[in-house]
Each structure stands twice: as C-alpha cells, then as structure tokens.
C-alpha cells in the first residue's frame, strides 16, 4: 500500500526557517541567514562539506538550541511527538532490549509498554527486526542497530524525522541496503525527512530536494529538485537520470567548497 504524495510544488508547508543565524561563543558564525521551507512529504537532503552548519541546522529545528536571530516556525505549532531523530551513531540504550529502546518516545509520555506494544512491534517489523525484539544492542550488527534507531524515530509517526549522517559510519553495502529500505519505509508511512549527508550519491538517490550548503559562514547556496519519481530502486542508481542529477549536485557541492575556500 503506497502513500499518496502531492507533487513537489503543491505540498502543504510544514516548517519554515527564516533568516536564521547561529553564532557560537560570540564569534563562530555557524549559520548565516539560513532560509528553508520544509513541506509535508518532502525528503530533503542537506548536502555540504563538513563544518557548514548542517548539524547546527538540525539541532535548531529539534529545539536543542535557540537561533541567535531569525525564526523557525512549525505550521500549526509544534506538539508532543512531532519529531523523530536519528544520529550518526545508533544511540541506543545498551541496558535496554530492542523493543524497550523503541518504546522510549512513548515511555517519556508516560505510556506503558503494553499499551503501545502493537505500535512498537509494527515499527520493528517495518525495519525487519521483529525477530530481534528481545535482543540487546550489543548482540546486533552496526546496520541492525541503525534500523532500531530508525524504528524508534518513526514509532510515534512524527510529522518530521531528522537524520544526521545516519549511515556515514556503515560500510557501502549496508549503506545501499539501508538507503533502499529507508525509501521503501517512506513509501509505507509517508514521513517527512530532513537528511544530512556529505555524499552526493546518497542525496540524489534518496531525496526529492537537495539543499546545498557552504561553510564559513554556513548558508544555503543552492537548491536542486530531483524530479525522478518514487519508488526508486537499484536500477535508478545506474540510470542516466541519476547520473545527470549527481553531476548537478556534484557541481553545486564543488561550488560550495570553492566559495568557502
């Protein structure tokens, strides 16, 4: 059962960053005049060299810190359980079993495990790990841990999922597999994602919009639409369309590195 998504350009707005600036310790300008509109159903990649403020942008959206100036507005205000987050490390609690890790967002809202068991197991099933619900994180491979982390981020069906280079530490094969599965998952549950990466190929494969950022000061220098339709599969990786988008994104990235240098 695939989710119906409005075409790019006809989607309702979810979140807007306007003229956002973030300065650390008075002089490190991590973000300068960042503007970004996130629409419902978007899969946005933030692509840029390291140090260009990608993580800072995510942390601002997550509300982990306040912008020095500018605004971040949620359409209809931000409510409980609107956010799911996946970090570069799986960030699981080693003392808790897989299912109890996925239970965490509900638990923080005071829900007992038995009352949300179905949701937890469904999320684990979506990432292909329902057989491992009672395992402990140390028994899992890196890729499997990351799947648990993804299950935890989506179990409450948040309006927005933030992913900060989630697959950067994985080997290429696992990474391709997780990219495919992430897209399949999105077709099932229709989530909105902001995905931070410094890989051109990953950003082209996954997203419908690529936001290219430059460093010093961190800012958006280019936005590219990837018009290729979903679902995308392995065949897409070798298509001319993919190569063309990768070339455009790669050019933009090089431009980003040049303007910063």
């Amino acid at each position, binding site marked *: 059962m695939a989710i119906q998504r409005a075409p790019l350009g006809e989607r309702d707005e979810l979140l807007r960053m306007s003229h956002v600036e973030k300065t650390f310790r008075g002089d490190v300008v991590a973000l300068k005049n960042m503007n970004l509109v996130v629409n419902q159903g978007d899969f946005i990649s933030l692509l840029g060299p390291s140090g260009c403020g990608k993580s800072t942008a995510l942390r601002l959206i997550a509300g982990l810190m306040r912008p020095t100036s500018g605004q971040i507005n949620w359409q209809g205000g931000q409510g409980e359980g609107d956010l799911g987050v996946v970090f570069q490390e799986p960030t699981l609690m080693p003392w808790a079993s897989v299912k109890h890790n996925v239970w965490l967002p509900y*638990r923080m809202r005071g829900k007992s495990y038995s009352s949300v068991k179905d949701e937890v197991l469904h999320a684990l099933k979506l990432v292909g790990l329902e057989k491992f619900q009672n395992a402990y994180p140390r028994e899992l491979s890196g890729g499997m841990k990351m799947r648990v982390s993804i299950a935890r981020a989506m179990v409450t069906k948040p309006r927005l999922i933030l992913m900060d280079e989630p697959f950067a530490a994985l080997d290429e094969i696992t990474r391709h597999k997780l990219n495919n599965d992430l897209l399949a998952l999105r077709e099932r549950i229709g989530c909105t994602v902001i995905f931070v990466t410094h890989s051109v190929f990953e950003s082209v494969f996954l997203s419908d919009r690529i936001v290219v950022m430059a460093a010093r000061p961190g800012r958006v220098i280019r936005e590219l639409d990837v018009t290729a339709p979903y679902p995308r599969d392995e065949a897409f990786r070798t298509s001319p369309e993919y190569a063309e988008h990768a070339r455009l994104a790669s050019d933009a990235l090089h431009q980003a590195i040049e303007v910063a240098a």
Partner: protein
Amino acid sequence: MTQVDTTPILDAEEEAHAKREKLIKLARWTLPSLVLFLTLASWQAYVTIAEVPHYVLPSPLLIAETLVKDWEILWPALIVTGRLTLIALILAVIGGVGLAVAFTQSKWIEMSLFPYAVVLQVTPVVAIAPLLQIYVDSAFVAALLCAWIVAFFPILSNTTIGLKSADHNLQDLFTIYGATGWQRLRYLTAPSALPFFLGGLKIAGGLALIGAVVAEFVIGRAGTGLGLASTLLEASYRFNFGRLYAALILISVMGVVVFALMSLISHLCLFRWHESALKRE
C-alpha cells in the same frame, strides 16, 4: 536474514585448541590447591622437625584443631564482625549514592562538599578512630562511623563519575522527547552510572571489612562486642597463637566472601548488556 551455521567444525587444530582450554581450566583450580598443600605441608614439617613452640608459630594442624575447638567463640565473633561490615557497607551505599546524586543535581553542593569527602578519605582511619571514640557516645556508632568513612568514598567518586557519563546524544534525545528530570535520572543517568557504581561497590566491600577490623582494634569490644579482630587481639595478649591464626584465617575468608558476593551482584546486574560481561569467542 542471514543464516548462521552453528554446527561445530572440529578439525585437528580446533581439537588441540579445545584440549588446551580444558587443561587451562583444570590448572586454574589444581595449581593454587597444590601450592596451598605444599605450603601447609612444609610448614607442618618445619614446626615438627625444628620443634618450634606453638606460641611462636603454631602448626597448621593446631590451627585447624583450634578452629574446631574454639568454634563456639569464633562463630559469634564472625557474626559480630560480619554485621558491622554489612551495616557499614549498606550505609556507605546509601551515603555514597545519595551524595553523588546531590552532586550531579547541583554544582554548588559538589563544590562545597567534595573537598571534605576527599579529606575524610585521605586521612588514615586509624588516626580518626580514637577521636570518634571520644566524641561519639555510643561505641557501636563510633565503630560504624569508622567503617563507613573508609567504605563510602569509592562509591561516592565512582557513582559521581558514572552519573556524568551518560551518552550526549541520548541526553539530547531525552530532551527532544521532553523527559522530566526524574525520567532522565531513572531511565538514562542511573543505568549509565550502574557499572561505575558496581565497580565502586566491589572496592567498598573490602574496605568496609578493613574499617570494621580497624574499629575493633581501636575502639575495642566495648563498642562492637567481641568480633574477630578483638578476638585476635585478645588471643595475642594471651599467647594463644592457635586462636590468633584461626581468627586471622576467618577474617581473610570473610574478605573473600564479601568480594565474591559483590562480584556476583555486579555480574547479575550487568551480564545481559554490559561490555565488561561480554565473553568473546
């Protein structure tokens, strides 16, 4: 999912390896036992042949005999020392963990009190004990305080570090999910601190026993009742070296039991998830 083949492949090399493992396992018990036996045997032989008087060095057989003969005195003494050790350890856990939580909740409390915890720790307890005896009315409380002072510091310092060692990303995640202070302590900081706390507990168990022995020596039977250490001391006054050695052995055995108990508790708490309890193939 990938299939894991679990049938053992036993070729010659593996068989040799398995044999070696078996041998090592056997040696782990037999070697120390052998050393013990040889030591006792030569000790016995030396005492018998050189006709060493029993008030200089009692023979192992005499000690064993005394252990049985004086059991009616030694067993109650063991209970007394054991009780003092256990109560001191429990109070050390309560005090150490309580203070550690207070330290992590407020920097001000930590700044005000931590130096004094260190001072208490570095001042030799043998030097403090006589003072305690003077200022604290109840000799039992004085003895308890004495053992407590020695035991609580490793728990305090380990737990404090543990409570601060929670993963930063998990901290952020808890913030994003709107965790309350209590939820954060209960589900994140406390479990992160657990392995550290248990490490402190292992040290504190041994120290509580040392503290109890020092208390018995310095404060004496007035406060603690006749414990193993006071029994040992009295036996030495009377040149009853058989009993002295018997009491000494029981103190060592108690130390080993306390350590084994703390290790067991630690294992039970950690074996499911912690890296330290992981057996690598």
